[in-house]
């Protein structure tokens, strides 16, 4: 447990940092699970359900730890099901609607690439609880990135139609990528505690990984450097997140205090 986070502001920063990790996996897992039974081919039904399952498992770990760090008796379920939109700390990209299969798999790839780089650093975290979770989770993420990258390549370099759709997905999603690399006071506190890297420091490795896959996929990064942001700080989510929470939290909200 976080012995190093002695003072309150450090503890608060650690809590926020863990929410960012757990909310990303929670909201992305929710989105991916929406595919259940509707995928283009049975193997993809299985793979998408499996990815969603891993992401929900990761959520249990990150939000579980967040609840312990907060120390107010909230467990992972309380954090997932009983916070409102302004307390969510996921990046905007994961809350966007699924779109077509191409958009879903492109988002998965852009997220997996970040996640694989991030977890590679968190394995060496000075916080043993974070390092332990990162170690556990990185095996799953290694498989996710392999699969999403292969699928992006297969569809980017497939037919004219699939290429067109994958390029459109990339153009739509790329302005949301930058948010993963923005730093703020929370990140600075994590860096100085030796718990996590500065997000900006992941960018080069990420860009190399993404460029390689997109080249194989015959896809081109869109022009422009504009970045949509506001999710991981909670400053401003998209309209979509409220609808995600409406369905996700409905039973817990309608029948409070029940055991399920």
């Amino acid at each position, binding site marked *: 447990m976080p012995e190093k986070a002695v003072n309150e502001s450090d503890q608060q920063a650690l809590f926020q940092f863990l929410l960012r990790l757990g909310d990303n996996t*929670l909201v992305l897992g*929710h989105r991916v*699970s*929406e595919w*259940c*039974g*509707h*995928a*283009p*081919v*049975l*193997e*993809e*039904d*299985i793979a998408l*359900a*499996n990815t*969603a*399952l891993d992401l*929900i*498992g990761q*959520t*249990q770990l990150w*939000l579980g730890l967040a609840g312990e760090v907060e120390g107010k008796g909230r467990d*992972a*379920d309380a954090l*997932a*099901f009983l916070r409102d939109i302004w307390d969510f700390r996921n990046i905007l990209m994961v809350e966007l609607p699924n779109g*077509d*299969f*191409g958009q879903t798999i492109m988002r998965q790839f852009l997220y997996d690439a970040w996640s694989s780089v991030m977890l590679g650093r968190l394995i060496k975290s000075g916080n043993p609880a974070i390092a332990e979770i990162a170690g556990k989770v990185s095996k799953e993420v290694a498989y996710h990135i392999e699969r999403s990258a292969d*699928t992006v*390549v*297969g*569809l980017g*370099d*497939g*037919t004219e*139609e*699939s*290429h067109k*759709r994958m390029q459109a997905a990339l153009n739509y999603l790329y302005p949301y990528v930058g948010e993963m690399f923005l730093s703020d006071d929370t990140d600075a506190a994590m860096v100085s505690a030796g718990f996590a890297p500065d997000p900006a420091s992941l960018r080069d490795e990420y860009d190399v990984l993404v460029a390689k896959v997109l080249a194989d996929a015959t896809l081109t990064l869109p022009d422009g450097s504009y970045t949509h942001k506001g999710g991981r700080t909670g400053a401003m989510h998209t309209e979509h997140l409220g609808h995600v929470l409406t*369905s*996700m939290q*409905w*039973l*817990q909200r309608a*029948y409070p205090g*029940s*055991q*399920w």
Partner: protein
Amino acid sequence: MYSQMEKTEGGDPKLQADMTDKERAFQDKIDRNIKIEPRDWMPDNYRATLIRQIGQHAHSEVVGQLPEGNWITRAPTLERKAILLAKVQDEAGHGLYLYAAAETLGVTRDQLTEDLLAGRMKYSSIFNYPTLNWADMGAVGWLVDGAAILNQVPLQRTSYGPYARAMVRICKEESFHARQGFHIMMKMAKGSDAQRKMAQDAVNRLWFPVLMMFGPSDKDSVHTAQSLAWRIKIDTNDQLRQKFVDQTVPQIEYLGLDLPDPGIKWNDETGQYDFSDPDWSEFFNVIKGNGPGNVDRMKARRAAWDDGAWVRDGLLAHARKKAAAKQLAAE
């Protein structure tokens, strides 16, 4: 399960004397419990019946993702969400093994899918019923998968090797599904008033549709004899239905829920429960496409197939390009 209306091709079993030598040798193998394998000779009707039965079973697994998928995004805890995702993933996996077993009989998965979407093949009637409250996720696991297990456990001994072996794997997972379903029901039945109401509603609504999963009464099921002789079917519909009622009634009582049928009564003489017949006209209507969910289920599956065509084409085109490049490099 999920193969409740399969018609056996070719009518009644032949008498020994009317069989050709090949047919006699084939029947002899079955009678001696030797598995029929893909490369063995088999009567055309045996092949056709199996394709229909295994295909219908596979389609049921695939369509069966939908009523449970309906609650994944609304599961009340992270653990329940994870369990439900794992379960639905298993169902899709069952579909995959079963299509693979059917393919050993000389059809392709795409052909079977086209047959389903064109309405030429069926899936289990149960998946045309809606899942309306969270307790349905318990009831589907406990009752629907419970009913399926009763049908599938004997199919592990069915005469066609690939089907029997697929069943072994599937049965293991279905038992886990039934247990997790019952666990949800226990939580609900022992929970708040609102939760008990959900549990009772689910049992009341699903009881008769689940009884229908075993197919029509033996007296109306004309093709049972040939399927029994071929060991494609092991027990009759009524035997399985009775077994299901006998095992399930005590469980309903254990949960403290009301019995969903006033006709359920212990019969000392037979040592079994008496129960009311389902409304068979409803069953035949659902089979004909008039169930509460038929149109939407097929619409969802057709959309998945049609909207996914570009994905399948794209991945195939890429695989061909890669293979061609590899060949070029080898030359």
